[in-house]
């Protein structure tokens, strides 16, 4: 922009101050949870040095490209940058006001012009800013959240955020599970028998190699979610969890039940979360009168059992075990499922409460037919599930 020489002579002294400002900015980002380390700090200085100090916009874009690593950060960056550097701008202005106020004002004006020009050539997110979200807490807040009992989530905002976290957790699980399943495998393996057979055509020369195909060892997950009134506090959270699972595991299925059983896999794959809410609300309309877990499992076995259950399947039941049907029916059908699958995991959100004993009739009956009985009342307890979702 304008007035290069004067500007530089003015900034030659404060060059160090400018560097300090840049470092300060990276610190602030780190406090905001951005993955900014020493290396990123140095890179930020390199970028900043390239930019003219008056070129706030160039600095903005440069640092944004450098320091953001995902959409979430990308969306928060603009506001953070503005807050930090607007303050800086104000400070410079007051400091130099006596020396060359007129020139400063001219610079401001040309800066404003520059911005206008950019809107003219529309930019991503420059003008639109950030939607509604304030800065989120850093690492310590996240830790606290991980231990919070879901039932203590007070307001709608917290609940929404937790839903988001739960879904993300489910997505991450796949990544870790896959990695673990893969450590033992090394490279392609030649299938000797087939190779010898193929080489007959070439007079015994093994020109055409046959390879063993890699087998995908991902588990098939079946989630059965209790959405009865006693579970209403937790239902949406687990549906979000199920949504995360269903979207990353190719072979996952989710069902909800209280008096009837409904497959919700497709509804959960819907990209828009609001629509998911609507669909599910419609599905559960007109249900009333207790929870019949046993009968629902019977239906499940009858309709889906043969297709979904095999040695690679892991069934996850989420329920408080408050069953209004006969406990024997529940026990029988759960046993039937268990015989065909690798593992049955029962998650009970109540288990996280102090002093809870699984005394409900249904729960008592089910305990004999589950491999893992675990609490599911916080992010941490869900995270602890991971080893049980691995095949093997």
């Amino acid at each position, binding site marked *: 922009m304008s007035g290069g020489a004067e500007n530089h002579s003015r900034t030659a002294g404060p060059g160090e101050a400018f560097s300090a400002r840049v470092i300060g900015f990276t610190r602030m980002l780190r406090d905001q949870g951005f993955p900014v380390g020493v290396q990123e700090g140095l890179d930020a200085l390199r970028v900043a040095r390239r930019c003219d100090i008056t070129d706030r916009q160039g600095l903005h874009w440069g640092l944004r490209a450098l320091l953001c690593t995902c959409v979430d950060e990308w969306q928060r960056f603009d506001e953070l940058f503005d807050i930090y550097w607007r303050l800086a701008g104000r400070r410079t202005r007051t400091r130099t006001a006596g020396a060359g106020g007129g020139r400063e004002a001219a610079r401001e004006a040309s800066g404003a012009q520059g911005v206008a020009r950019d809107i003219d050539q529309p930019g991503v997110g420059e003008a639109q800013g950030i939607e509604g979200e304030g800065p989120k807490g850093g690492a310590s807040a996240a830790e606290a959240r991980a231990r919070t009992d879901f039932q203590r989530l007070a307001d709608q905002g917290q609940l929404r955020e937790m839903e988001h976290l739960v879904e993300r957790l489910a997505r991450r699980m796949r990544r870790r599970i896959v990695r673990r399943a*893969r450590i033992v495998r090394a490279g392609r393996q030649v299938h000797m028998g087939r190779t010898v057979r193929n080489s007959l055509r070439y007079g015994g020369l093994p020109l055409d190699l046959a390879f063993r195909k890699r087998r995908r060892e991902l588990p098939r997950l079946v989630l059965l979610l209790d959405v009865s009134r006693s579970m209403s506090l937790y239902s949406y959270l687990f549906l979000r969890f199920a949504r995360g699972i269903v979207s990353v595991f190719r072979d996952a299925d989710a069902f909800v039940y209280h008096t009837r059983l409904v497959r919700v896999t497709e509804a959960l794959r819907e990209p828009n979360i609001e629509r998911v809410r609507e669909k599910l609300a419609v599905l559960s309309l007109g249900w009333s009168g207790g929870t019949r877990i046993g009968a629902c499992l019977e239906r499940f076995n009858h309709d889906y059992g043969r297709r979904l259950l095999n040695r690679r399947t892991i069934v996850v039941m989420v329920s408080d075990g408050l069953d209004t049907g006969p406990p024997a029916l529940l026990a029988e059908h759960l046993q039937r499922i268990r015989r065909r699958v690798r593992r049955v995991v029962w998650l009970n959100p109540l288990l996280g409460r102090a002093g809870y004993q699984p005394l409900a009739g249904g729960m008592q009956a089910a305990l004999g037919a589950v491999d893992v009985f675990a609490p599911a009342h916080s992010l941490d307890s869900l995270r602890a599930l991971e080893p049980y979702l691995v095949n093997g």
Partner: protein
Amino acid sequence: MRDIADFQWRLDEAGYVAERSLAATLMLVARMQRPLLLEGEAGVGKTEIAKALARVFDSPLIRLQCYEGLDVSSAVYEWNYQHQLLTIRLQESEPGPAQEKEKHIFSEAFLLKRPLLQAITQPESPVLLVDEIDRTDEEFEAYLLELLSDYQISIPELGTVQATSIPYVVLTSNGTRELSDALRRRCLYHYVDYPTFDKELRIVHKHLPAIGEQLGAQVVAFVQGLRELELRKRPGIAETLDWAAALLHLDIESLDQDPARLADSLTCLLKTKEDRDALSAGQVDGLVAKTT
């Protein structure tokens, strides 16, 4: 600021309409020689950016399309096994030390270079496009990360191949899977959003100069309105261009001219049956009314 505008202009020359902030990022890619990670919904033109970059730098574009199960032999290099075997057969009768023969069959002549090896053995920096990186496995991602920090590939039989030139690397992702933090930190980042009205209009005019001012503006406004609706697959820029071209072929000059034909042509924009069913005639009329 001047050079950013200049770079933006060069991108424009190369057929890509970029906003200034993207031009600034791309310039940083060139200067810092860091890979660039582009994220955004399908159809916002992520792949096009790499192609435009190749045209701007006047360098070859090497493309690696990722998929689940992509392995080293199809991404980096592979020995031409059949060729080697036949050579051994031919050499059997020839005298000479076995060691030399072995060296011969593991020479570059028998090496099949796949995109990644190609990319680092060019005389001048090419643009390497690693498309849909989120579709590969974590294993491959880790390999790529190593390559992107050292720019060398080690081939056990041949030794380490050092990069003759450092490629401009562009990675694209639309979030099928989360990428590792290490890879994200290694890269510069840019989130590509759906274009604004003005930008999309410029794109349409750039690709279809024959389209009139009126129809062009209508088309873009219609598509932009469509993106606001809750569709399973929102139309991208490519769909806008397809549709605009189709309308040109149908001799439509204004969207409200022929509702029946318009409805037929919508298949260019809505690629799933569900979306076509979900969009009622009333909604289409509403959108048309708003744009004309």
